C-alpha cells in the first residue's frame, strides 16, 4: 500500500513538473515574433495563451487516480490537466503551433485540445465543459462500468448556469462525476470575493445533497487524499462530489495581461510556497526518492517536453484549403 502511495506521489511530481516545464517553455515561445511590440496574432503561437503555472496540484493529484477510461474535461487553461491525463504531448504541442500534425490538425488550438484516446477535452467557453463530463458519467453508469468523469473548472465558472444545471443532474442521477474547482482567486481581473457569494464552492455541494471538499493552500498531498476519496466513492456508485482547491495563478490571466488589477505583492508570496518544490522536499525528506534520481527524472521530463516542441516546430502547416475539411464526418 505504501508502495503504491509512493509511486503515486512520484507520478504526481512528474506530472506537475512536466506541466511546469512545458509551460515555462511556452511562456518564452509565445513571445517569439511578439517583440518588441506585443501583438497577440503574431509569432509561431498566436491567439490567447492561458498558462497554469502554480495550479499543477489540482490536476496531477486528482488525475493520478484516473485511468484512460475515465473522462476529463478542462477549460481555457488546460495544459496541466492534459499533460496529467496523458494527452499525446507531441500532438498537443503541434496543435498549439497550429500544425497539421496537431491533435486537431491545427483547427483547434490551445483552448480546444481533444484527445479521445485518453478521453480528454477542453474548451474556451467558461462552464461549457461541465455538462460534457456529466454526459460521459451518464454513459459510464448506463454501461455498468466503474469509470468516472471529472470536470475541472475555475472558481469563476462556478457562477455559470451550466455549473448548476450540471451539478443537479449529476446528483439527481447519482452519477460517477467529480467537479474540481481550481480556485486561483481570480476570474481574469475579478476576484473571488467580487464574483462569488460564498467563501468556497465546496459549500455549494449542499445545494445538491452531495459531498463537498475543500483543499487548502494548494497542497498536493491533501489534494491527493481528497481526490482519492471522491474518486473511490464515484466508482462505488456513491455519487458525485465537488472538490475546491485553493490554488495559485502565478501569471496573468493570459499572456500579455497587464495585471493592473492585482496587488504586486501577491505572486511573490505565492511563489514562495510553490507546490512542486513543496512536494519535491517532501519526497526527499521522506526518502521516497533520492536527489540523484530526481535529477534523472527531471532530465527525462525536460527531454520529453523538448522533443514535443521539436516535433511541433518541425511539423508542417496545414494547407489553407484544409480549413474546409472535417466539418462533417
Amino acid at each position, binding site marked *: 500500500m505504501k508502495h503504491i502511495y509512493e509511486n503515486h506521489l512520484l507520478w504526481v511530481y512528474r506530472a506537475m513538473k512536466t506541466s511546469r516545464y512545458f509551460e515555462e517553455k511556452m511562456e518564452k515561445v509565445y513571445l517569439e515574433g511578439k517583440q518588441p511590440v506585443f501583438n497577440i496574432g503574431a509569432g509561431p503561437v498566436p491567439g490567447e495563451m492561458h498558462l497554469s503555472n502554480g495550479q499543477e496540484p489540482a490536476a496531477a493529484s486528482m488525475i493520478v487516480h484516473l485511468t484512460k477510461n475515465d*473522462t476529463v*474535461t478542462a477549460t481555457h487553461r488546460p495544459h496541466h490537466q492534459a499533460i496529467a491525463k496523458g494527452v499525446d504531448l507531441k500532438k498537443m504541442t503541434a496543435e498549439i503551433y497550429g500544425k497539421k500534425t*496537431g*491533435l*486537431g*490538425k*491545427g*483547427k*483547434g488550438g490551445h483552448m*480546444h485540445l*481533444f*484527445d*479521445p484516446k485518453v*478521453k480528454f*477535452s477542453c*474548451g474556451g*467557453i467558461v462552464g*461549457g465543459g*461541465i*455538462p*460534457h*463530463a*456529466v*454526459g*460521459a*458519467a*451518464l*454513459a*459510464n453508469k*448506463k*454501461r455498468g462500468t466503474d469509470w468516472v*468523469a471529472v470536470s475541472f473548472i475555475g472558481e469563476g465558472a462556478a457562477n455559470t*448556469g*451550466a455549473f448548476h*444545471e*450540471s451539478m*443537479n*443532474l449529476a446528483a*439527481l442521477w447519482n452519477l460517477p462525476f467529480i467537479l474540481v474547482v481550481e480556485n486561483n482567486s481570480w476570474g481574469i481581473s475579478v476576484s473571488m470575493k467580487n464574483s462569488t457569494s460564498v467563501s468556497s464552492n465546496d459549500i455549494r455541494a449542499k445545494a445538491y445533497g452531495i459531498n463537498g471538499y475543500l483543499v487548502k493552500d494548494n497542497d498536493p498531498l491533501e489534494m491527493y487524499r481528497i481526490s482519492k476519496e471522491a474518486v473511490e466513492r464515484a466508482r462505488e456508485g456513491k455519487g458525485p462530489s465537488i472538490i475546491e482547491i485553493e490554488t495559485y495563478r502565478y501569471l496573468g490571466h493570459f499572456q500579455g495581461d497587464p495585471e493592473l488589477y492585482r496587488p504586486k505583492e501577491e505572486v511573490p508570496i505565492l511563489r514562495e510556497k510553490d507546490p512542486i518544490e513543496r512536494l519535491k522536499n517532501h519526497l526527499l525528506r521522506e526518502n521516497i526518492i533520492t536527489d540523484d534520481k530526481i535529477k534523472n527524472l527531471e532530465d527525462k521530463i525536460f527531454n520529453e517536453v523538448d522533443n514535443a516542441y521539436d516535433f511541433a516546430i518541425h511539423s508542417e502547416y496545414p494547407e489553407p484549403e484544409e480549413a474546409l*475539411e*472535417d*466539418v*462533417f*464526418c
Partner: protein
Amino acid sequence: METIKEKRKKLTGSKAMIQALEQEMNRDSNIFIMGEDIGKYGGIFGSTTGLYDKFGSDRIMDTPISETGFIGASVGAAAEGLRPVVELMFADFHGVVMDQIYNHIAKIHYMSGGNVKLPIVLMTAVGGGYSDAAQHSQTLYASFGHLPGLKVVAPTFPHDIKGMLITAIRDDNPVIFMFHKTLQGLGWMDQIDASLGPVPEEAYTIPLDKANIVREGKDVTIVGVQMMTVEALKAAEKLAEQGIDAEVIDLRSIKPIDKETILTSIAKTNRLVVVDEDYYSYGITAEISAIVASEGFKDLKAPIVRLAIPDVPIPYSRVMEKFVIPNADNIIDSVKKLVKI
C-alpha cells in the same frame, strides 16, 4: 421525388416519428432519448408517445428543466459511444442552450480535426398558428441554419419525417430535427390533411440534403418548408384553376440547402417565390434568393418574391397572428403579379 415503397399505412407525423425512434432503438441499444416530459407524458407534441412503456426509464429519460445540462450532456455521452437523441421541447427555448448547440455540439468535430464524432439528434418542435404567442410559436429555421457544423432538417410529410429521422439517427454528425407542431397530426390541434400520409412499415432512410419537388409546374417555382409547403400546394391548386402552373419545392433541408433542385427548377420556370414561417430578415427567403441571384441569375426573368413573417415577434391575438404568417392567399396574390412580369 421519392420512390414509392410497398406495405404502407397512413400515419400522422407524430406516429411516423415514434415509429422511426422505436425501430431504431430496437436496432441499436446505444440509442437513448432525453428530454422534458418525453417519458410517461410521451412528449408534449407526441414525439415519444408509448416509448417509455416499451423501453423504460433508462432509455427514455425525463430530465429536469436544465437544457444546458442535459443537451450539453449529450456531448459527453456521444463521445463515449452512445447515440443520444435529445428533445428541446420548443425551438423557442434554444436561447437557454444555444452555447452548447453551436459552440460545442456543432464545432467539436471540426476543432478536434475530425477525431471526435458526435452522433446527436436534437429534436425540436417549431411553428405557430394556434395563439401560443411570442415565446412559443417560432420556427427559427435560420437561427440554426446560419451556424456551421449542424445539419438542419425540417420535413413536412409523415413519409419524410420517418425517413429523415432514421437517417438523422444513423448519421454520425449532429442533426437538428425540426418537427412542425401542426404537422404532427395531434388530436388537440388543427387537423390538416398533410399531417396524415402513407408511411412504409419497415425502416428506410431519406437523405438529409435533398429538397423534394412535390408538384411539378412550369410557370413559377414556389419554395416552401413545412407549413409553408402545405400553403404553397394549396395555392398551386388554385392557381392551376386559373391557368398558372406552379412548381412547388418542399425544402426539407435547411442546411445544407439543395441548391441543385432549386436552380434546376428556376432554369425551367424563371420565376421564384420563397415562403417561410420564420422571420423575414436573414431567413430562408434571403438565403434562397441569394443562391438564385448569384448562381441562377441568368435564368431569372423577374424579381424574386419573399414571403415570411415580417420582422415582428409573433403576436398572440388570432387576428394578428394570422396576419403575420404567410398563407395560400398571399402566395396566390404574389404569383399572379409575378407571372405578369
